[in-house]
């Protein structure tokens, strides 16, 4: 029998038993919808966590501290130097790794000043962060003393003769970021106390050139001023030398760095990279991703519980389908026997019943998916304000990813076919003569 004919026959049979078909389909609709909606709430929750964390910082970033003594689990000690960094660069998942050298400074230009963190990282890191530049350009390695201002950093300049500190909350640049600046260790620079409270420390002034300003004020980088490693190291060394009364610091750590930044493009690998750095190198790490993982574990558990509740309703639907199909086999005993006698193959008989059951499952699944989208829409539009806040959810209460739709359809169809299997087997093995006597 051709598949088209079987399909038509099945449709006919389902339509003939309309009421019962509809009832079994409704069972599947409820089951599928329950599963999808429940899981979508779990997904919404997990997405909400991620949204929340992303507002705190970059989930791709692992910060590495020179703590834990650099003692790896096999007892080896690691110095946080260029050689170790070169090794760490090869860890699976690491996209860019860079030392992070920071110095808190007073920076002044155009009669205004600001107290900022100057951070030196590799330019590849700045590129990996994909920070948009609004004015000027990115730092490049050939910059001797170039500075890239975070948007907020550029806004935090103030005239020290007029006010005590910067205005918070502004993101409008208070200076032209593309000018010459003076970096100094005199915390009274520009005030009328200038140079008077230095104590033992020698006052120094380092020239720097602004080359660009970032576009976004919504990330953690907006508060800082970025430069090359070389320049940041130079500033740091000069500051230490000035503090030591002019003698160059006898850097006890040699060429060691204090902090590293590791950028992991593949979010799924952030955790394993952190783990490797902790155990194989003995450094301390911090990433928002660790927190996300913890939160996601909770979300997954909630998802599983909610999905399980949905699953139970689909199980009930499966019983409904099985019942429908068994009744159908009983009612059609004679019909099946006649078909067998006049030439239906056993395979075709089984196919017919499996297909009918599968169609109930698939049909219910399709309607269930549509209904779920509707419910999801309503929840996102009318409930996200109300309960969203209460449960720490993000902007969406319910998220239905495409894989969930496909999985639900596959699952509901499978439930149909599995429920139909035993009735189909019964139809196939039924005695023809018994069926024909049955009048």
């Amino acid at each position, binding site marked *: 029998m*051709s598949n088209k004919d079987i399909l038509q026959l099945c449709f006919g049979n389902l339509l003939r038993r309309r009421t019962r078909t509809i009832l079994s389909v409704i069972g599947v609709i409820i089951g599928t919808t329950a599963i999808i909606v429940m899981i979508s709430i779990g997904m919404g929750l997990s997405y909400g966590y991620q949204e929340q964390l992303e507002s705190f910082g970059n989930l791709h970033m692992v910060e590495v501290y020179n703590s834990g003594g650099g003692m790896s689990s096999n007892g080896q000690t690691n110095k946080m130097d260029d050689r170790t960094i070169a090794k760490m660069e090869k860890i699976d998942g690491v996209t860019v790794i860079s030392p992070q050298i920071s110095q808190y400074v007073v920076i002044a230009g155009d009669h205004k000043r600001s107290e900022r963190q100057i951070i030196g990282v590799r330019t590849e890191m700045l590129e990996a962060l994909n920070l948009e530049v609004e004015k000027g350009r990115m730092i490049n390695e050939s910059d001797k003393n170039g500075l890239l201002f975070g948007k907020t950093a550029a806004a935090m300049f103030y005239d020290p003769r007029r006010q005590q500190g910067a205005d918070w909350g502004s993101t409008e640049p208070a200076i032209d970021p593309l000018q010459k600046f003076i970096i100094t260790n005199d915390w009274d620079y520009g005030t009328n106390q200038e140079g008077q409270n230095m104590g033992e420390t020698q006052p120094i002034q380092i020239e720097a050139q602004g080359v660009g300003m970032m576009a976004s004020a919504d990330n953690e980088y907006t508060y800082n001023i970025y430069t090359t490693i070389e320049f940041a190291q130079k500033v740091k060394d000069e500051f230490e030398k000035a503090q030591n009364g002019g003698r160059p610091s006898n850097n006890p750590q040699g060429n060691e760095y204090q902090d590293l930044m590791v950028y992991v493009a593949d979010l799924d690998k952030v955790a394993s990279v952190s783990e490797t750095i902790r155990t194989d190198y003995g450094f301390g790490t911090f990433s928002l991703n660790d927190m996300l993982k913890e939160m996601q574990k909770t979300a997954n558990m909630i998802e599983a519980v909610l999905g399980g509740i949905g699953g139970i309703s689909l199980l009930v639907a499966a019983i409904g389908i099985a019942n429908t199909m068994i009744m159908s086999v009983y009612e059609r005993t*004679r019909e099946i026997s006649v*078909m067998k*006698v*006049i*030439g239906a*193959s056993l*395979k075709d008989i089984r196919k017919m019943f499996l297909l009918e059951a599968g169609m109930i499952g698939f049909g219910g699944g399709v309607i269930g998916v549509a209904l779920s989208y509707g419910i999801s829409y309503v929840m996102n539009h009318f409930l996200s304000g109300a309960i969203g806040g209460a449960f720490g959810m993000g902007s969406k209460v319910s998220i239905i990813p495409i894989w969930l739709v496909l999985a639900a359809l596959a699952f509901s169809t499978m439930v149909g076919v599995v429920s139909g299997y035993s009735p189909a087997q019964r139809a196939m093995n039924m005695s023809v*003569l018994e069926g*024909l006597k049955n009048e």
Partner: protein
Amino acid sequence: MDDNALIRIRHVRKVYLMGEEKVVALDDVSLDIYKGEFVCFLGTSGSGKSTFLNMVAGLEKPTRGEVWIGKVPIHKLNEAQVTIFRQKNIGFIFQAYHLMQSMTALENVALPLMLKGVPKEIREPAAKKALAQVGLKGYEGRKPNQMSGGQQQRVGIARALVVKPKIIFADEPTGNLDSHTTKDVMDLISKETKENGTTLILVTHDRSIADYADKIVTIQDGNIINVEVKGKKNETA
């Protein structure tokens, strides 16, 4: 016994178990049926006619003995094999017509072709032709419950004829019909099978129907007690 006969039935026995009790439906039956022959199994109710027919058609397995159709040992085939054999070679006409109630006359007649995988464009004209052959032109769209018993049986006959089978089995095909309709239906069956050279095996308890046959096999208590061939003297088994 003739090894060239189309259907060769050899020492077939069928015993049913009813709990502890054995019911011997067929005792020891042997028979030859030739191609194109119209054979009638005649006997009273419970004599074993239907059991015999079912055995030959492969719907039931004999307890003992052999049934050969051509080179095929029907008694050895499993259900899947026997289904394929029936699909290719055999047509059935039932006492209770056994039409699909949800299908039209045309669809009922086309059903065996559909089961064989014949596409709609071919099977529907063929079914239409078969319906015309049995005198039901214009009834294509009728459902079984919109037709008389005689008409339904004509649909049943058309359904058996449409696949052009080598053998047609008919168990009391007129059992539910009045005597007038019975004559029409019997005329139709014997005419159509003769014209196509189809072998026809028909079961009845009615002597007047048996008279249509080329060979009348009388069965009693599970044994053949008489074989009567038209134009020949009775030969006792």
